[in-house]
């Protein structure tokens, strides 16, 4: 056998084993087409726990992986000073695309585009201008939860002995900076920040830089003045406000290094709230818990306090001015009040708690009798609007005759939802409020799966007497005798189409009349060919929009949508209809 035939045999064997595929590519900078040298490119085979393969780019940005088995891969790139990039990404920080490699396939010129990261630096100083050592400095970004704008922690750092900090490897965008002394970080009360886990698997820039191990001061020493009734520590936002609504935005361009973001920390003069949790007879209720949330604010924070166990009184300290909702829960009794805190302490607050009233109703299915097939498969829930952490969600299961009974409904505003039809839109990560399954009724079984005929059904109407409470929301006052009438229909529409051939664009379906109906807001990412599809769309008028780069859930916010009102495509979805929208334009 000649040498060449041996080589051929080896080649064939390798091809059979699928080991000789390779990927060659190039890493470039976003705005300049030059190759980036010394970038670490990581190749990870999907579904494999092994350490990824690593390669470095050459001076002209080229890299190569050889001897690869066939399979699906994800390829990411990292270099100091650049936002981590992934193959197929539309924007820094957004999802990438997998690479499918056939046995023996030689992929060439696979591009990865990287964006320079930005940094914010400055000093944290005390009232008197001295450096604050070990202060926690946070970079925050606007995100959307349930249509609300909230500030979310992106990265935190600590100051050194000169009070200096540096937040870095930040994806270009708009940021807010706040700081609080390390030892004053709220743990047992005060403001609780909500940081969500980073979405992309290797998105280092969005990782939270947190201290893992710190020693307490020796002998209980506090570097800052001890807390007192006169002073409380809350995060101070650049350029120097305790109120996040008046914080300044810091705009970061790619590669920018914004210096001099100095914050002077000073304790605020806190207000104190005092009051009692009482029952319907005005008697104090012991053992309640109070959830305090700021209403109408970008702050996504809430605190909990315990009510004095014996006499039902409570005292909440360190409250900064603003509008608050106080929710008291004691066993199966609950109650809430809203209150404005301005310049003075508030005394004599009374939060009445009561066992809520019961609400009955009936579910019917259009065109068919409700029968044993759906017994126990449906549940009607009253989702408090707005949904604050800790609020119970009253719910009732639907029986064989379609009747349901919801117990313990407190006065207030609700959205009526019917499980399993009205669950979260596809992009659930940013709309946690919707994704949350309701609290199960005590002892009640969970929902068995729906029969196939109803899998694509939707809620057509919910009425309380003559009132459409599906679209307008349900307002429960102390006594209401009427029953809820729920109609389910099983012939939804379908919307599909494409955005040209752009993969990974976000396509959102938004009800044309902006109703408080989380189930009518839907979103998907376009596939590798730029196609999208929505199934189970309730009939109605919708606006179809596509973005290159958008914060998840932003389309549920009316203020955000305003500039895009006439830039989307209007679609009218009829019962059982299919709408196809081609070449939907992608917004930036």
């Amino acid at each position: 056998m000649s040498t060449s035939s041996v080589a051929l045999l080896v080649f064939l064997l390798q091809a059979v084993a699928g080991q000789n595929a390779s990927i060659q590519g190039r890493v470039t900078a976003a705005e300049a087409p030059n190759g980036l040298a010394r970038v670490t490119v990581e190749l990870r085979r999907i579904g494999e726990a092994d350490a990824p393969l690593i390669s470095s780019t050459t001076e002209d940005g080229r890299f190569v992986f050889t001897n690869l088995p066939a399979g699906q891969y994800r390829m990411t790139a990292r270099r100091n000073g650049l936002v981590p990039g992934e193959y197929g990404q539309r924007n820094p920080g957004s999802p990438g695309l997998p690479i499918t490699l056939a046995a023996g396939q030689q992929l060439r010129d696979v591009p990865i585009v990287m964006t320079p990261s930005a940094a914010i630096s400055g000093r944290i100083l005390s009232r008197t201008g001295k450096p604050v050592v070990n202060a926690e400095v946070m970079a925050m970004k606007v995100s959307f939860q349930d249509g609300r704008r909230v500030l979310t922690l992106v990265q935190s750092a600590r100051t050194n002995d000169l009070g200096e900090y540096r937040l870095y490897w930040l994806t270009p965008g708009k940021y807010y900076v706040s700081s609080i002394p390390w030892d004053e970080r709220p743990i047992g009360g005060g403001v609780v920040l909500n940081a969500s886990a980073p979405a992309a698997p290797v998105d280092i820039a969005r990782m939270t830089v947190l201290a893992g191990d710190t020693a307490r001061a020796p002998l209980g020493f506090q570097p800052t003045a001890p807390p007192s009734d006169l002073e409380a520590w809350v995060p101070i936002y650049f350029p120097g406000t305790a109120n996040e609504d008046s914080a300044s935005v810091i705009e970061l361009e790619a590669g920018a290094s914004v210096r001099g973001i100095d914050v002077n920390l000073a304790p605020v003069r806190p207000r104190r709230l005092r009051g009692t949790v009482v029952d319907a007879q005005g008697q104090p209720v012991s053992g309640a818990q109070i959830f305090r949330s700021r209403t109408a604010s970008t702050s996504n924070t809430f605190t909990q306090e315990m009510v004095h166990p014996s006499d039902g009184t409570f005292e909440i300290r360190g409250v900064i001015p603003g509008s608050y909702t106080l929710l008291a829960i004691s066993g199966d009794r609950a109650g809430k009040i809203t209150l404005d805190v301005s310049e003075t302490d508030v005394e004599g607050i009374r939060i009445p708690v009561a066992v809520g009233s019961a609400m009955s109703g009936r579910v019917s299915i259009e065109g068919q009798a409700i029968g044993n097939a759906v017994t126990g498969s449906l549940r009607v829930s009253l989702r408090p609007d707005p949904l604050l952490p800790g609020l119970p969600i009253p719910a009732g299961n639907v029986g064989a005759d379609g009747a349901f009974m919801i117990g313990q409904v407190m006065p207030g505003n609700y959205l009526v939802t019917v499980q399993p039809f009205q669950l979260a839109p596809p992009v659930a990560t940013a709309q946690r409020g919707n994704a949350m399954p309701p609290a199960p009724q005590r002892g009640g079984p969970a929902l068995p799966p729906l029969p196939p005929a109803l899998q694509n059904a939707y809620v057509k109407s919910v009425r309380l007497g003559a009132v459409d409470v599906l679209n307008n929301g349900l307002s429960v006052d102390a006594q209401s005798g009427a029953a809820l009438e729920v109609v389910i229909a099983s012939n939804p529409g379908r919307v599909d189409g494409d955005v040209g051939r752009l993969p990974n664009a976000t396509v959102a379906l938004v009800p044309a009349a902006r109703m408080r109906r989380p189930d009518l807001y839907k979103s998907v990412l376009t596939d590798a060919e730029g196609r999208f599809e929505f199934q189970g769309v309730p009939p109605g008028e919708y606006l179809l929009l596509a973005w290159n780069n958008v914060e998840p859930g932003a389309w549920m916010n009316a203020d955000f949508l305003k500039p895009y009102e006439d830039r989307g495509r209007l679609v009218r979805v009829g019962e059982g209809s299919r709408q196809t929208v081609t070449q939907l334009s992608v917004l930036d």
Partner: protein
Amino acid sequence: MTLLLGYAIKSSIVLMVALFGVALLRRRSAASRHALLFAGIVAAATVPLLAIVVPARTIPMPAQVPEFLPPDPAAATPPATTEPYYEVSASPVDEVDEMVAIPQTAHPTDAQAGTFSLDRSQLLLWAWISGVALLVAHLLAGVAQLVVVSRRARVLTEGAWVEIAEEISRRYGLTSRIRLLETSQAVLATWGVFRPKLLVPDGASSWPAERIRIVLHHELAHVRRYDWLVQMFAEALRAFYWFNPLCWVACEKLVQESEQACDDIALSCGIAGTDYAQQLLALTIALKHPKTTLSAAISMARPSTLERRFNALLNPGENRRSVSATSLAVTMAAALTVAGSIASLRLVAEPLLMTLPQPAAPMVPEALHALTSALMTFMPQVPLQSQVPAVPANASAPAGAGSIEGTVVKSGTTEQIPGATVSLQRIPGPGAAVTPPTLIQSGTDGKFAFSNLAPGSYRLVALRADGFVVAEHGQQTFNGRGRPVPLLDGQRLTNVSLAMMPTGSIFGRVFDRDGDPLGRAQVQALQATYREGRRILKIIQSVQTNDVGEYRLFWLPPGPYYITARPEDPRRRNVPLYVAYPGTGGVFEQAAPPVLTHRVLENGTVSEESFVLVYYPGTTEFPSAAPIDLRPGDSLGGINFSVGAGQVQTRHVRGRAIDANGQPLTGNVLAVSRTPHPNATIPSATLGGDGRFDIGGVVPGSYYILAGNPPAIVPIEVGGLDLENVAVVSRPGVELNGRIVIEGKPAIDTDPDVARLQANCPGAATVRCLPIRLNLVAEPALLGFPQEVPAGMPGMAQPGGGIPNGVVLADGMFTFRNLSVREHRLAFTGLPPDWYVRSARLGSLDVISSLVSFPAATTDRLEVVIGTSGGRIEGRVVNATGQPVASATAVLVPEAPNRSRRDFYRSAVTDDAGVFRFQGIAPGDYKVFAWEEIEVSSWLDPAIVRPHESRGKAVRIQAGTRENVEAVVIPAER
């Protein structure tokens, strides 16, 4: 009975230390608090044992059994009032509450005891026994109930629960599969050790996957952490010490912390805090009115702990680190040391802090420091004196009370330091309650004044976080030992000076192999220190570089530092920053698995690489590292270096691990470096079904391969190639018998002098024992593998029960069972003050002067000869001008051929007159050294003693002689 009360008091102290420690760690992770609590509980449990094992060091042993103080009347109060969480009604804790009430009625009141004073101790004994019986019955009933409920439950074999459980088990690395049991009750609980079981409520099989995932993340975390076992152990201890409210508090706290630790593990697996909190709340509501409560199980959704957990769940800054085996071992060792020092206290005469002599146990000073700082964490709750007119230093201060005034100055200067916090704490007398310290700020002229003080001893400390080391009154150097301020009745002390040492900083940049700045690199300042006579490195501070490679280490006390750097561990979500306040703390050991990368080389081959620590100025070898000498207040910049040298190709170690019968071992196999380092990287692998292993990521060097329990230890050398066919054979533990002979007392069990020392044996109430304990300490001490502790460590029960290892029976016989086949060092505790070890032989081998390597089986007996008339030295330390030196450390160092006899070394701290005392000295030649300042146990290092050899005062000791020595102090280097 008095003995029991004594143990109770001591275990209370241990528990109190642990609880204070937990308070101290409130910003640390729940897992570390849980570990500390557990260590505290274990330590409390071992107090009766340690009381006998640990010698009563410098205090002369009382001729009779010491009378312990009567218990604090508060100790008999049921703990229900101490725990606010009990207020939640209809919670699973209720049943426990009822149980608390029973002991109260069963416990005789003082009045009763007084009336029947003759039977008092018997009454108490019966009360105690019935309490124990009740609680043990309750505990057993709880377990029985679990068994019954589990038997009746439906086993889930398919569906979301099983699939998700498998996935998470894999992720957690659990070897045993959890049994998923759907019960007919509203319970959600985990129990069992080897075959863990998860009880889920009726209908749980149709829960949404999201909730199942959250529940399983949480419950499997319990399984991984062995929480049920830990809790059962704690409950058992509580049954034993039921009359002690601290036990109840500690048990409850343990539950809370374990829940939070599991929440943390779940969150670190990527579950969002808000989702988790919502599900937890939903669960709690669903499970609020269970028909039955399972008192012996761990339940996830307990309303009583919710509030705190919510706060912790939703706080992104919450420390969620889990605890490594190493730090658990270190915590445990520390707790045992504290327990040991407390156990050795004779609760008479002197105040607590003063009865603890300096260097008897090497870790005592640290433990003591931890204790005092733990006690003082209550400080923030104490208002500043300026705001409260009544000085809380001592409420019962008589009229005409004393005062202490002084100035805080910068060390070595007269420059005054304003704004320092000055803390004054009265050292409590025996049995007296610990009073919180009084705090004031030094004025603009650096002056401070405390008035209205009762006579006594006070600890005086000054603190300022921005660039000064904590200063204590009486220190010779900034990190030296402080001395209390004695204050007579009505005395007015003025001109007390507290000198604070300014800290320095070191800064620079770190670059990668290509010379680019390296972001997020971990940079540490290490300092050499001594631990049990061994020179080791300790992590003083750990910071991170930013995107331009800059780092800054600050708050560093003066001294030489080694600076290290390595790239970040990309697996970590949280960065391990460690910034302790100046002059406090430090980390002895932290371990992590190696970070492996598979680099594709230009020729297409793949190289397995890892990063090792690089020392400034750019070497991976410690001997070539350049220490940076930081002087007070220095700010040293430009300490730039590259981590390029740290990128090394790693190798594999492959082989097979079997037991003596050729059966494959299971579990994990580790490669532990033979060179100890505070930043250990431990490659490991899981043993295959046939005992085969393949450890990757091994950097060339010397290692021990460890597998099995007791661990088989195989030394290996890894060079430039993979190491194949390493055979690891674990051998069963060895039994070793021995006998103690006491000089001049041939029949020791009948000798009246010796008989007086006898007491009941631990673990066997009817057998009499001597107070002497033998300890075989495994050498080398390996990361994650605690050294063998002699007697009945909980969880290391004696096979077949019986007298614990190393306990000496009345006739002088002792036994060690299940000793691992490796080298050990023989140590003694519990020797009466004038006694010493003359010799210890195994056959013809001297086993006290050097390490002893036990063969796989020995028929030789360990023969120990004890001398009873050791010499005594009373001495004085003076300076060059003949003036007595207080607070100096006097060290007795044996001369050749006994330099290696660790048990012959003695050390003591001089009192105000410069006087020190040693006793129980074996006849022979010695030298007495006196250091103004020396690190504890460093004198065991010949390199430390050698340069001062000529300054040692020679002294020859003969049996029973008493010598007077005057030693000239070796001044501290400043």
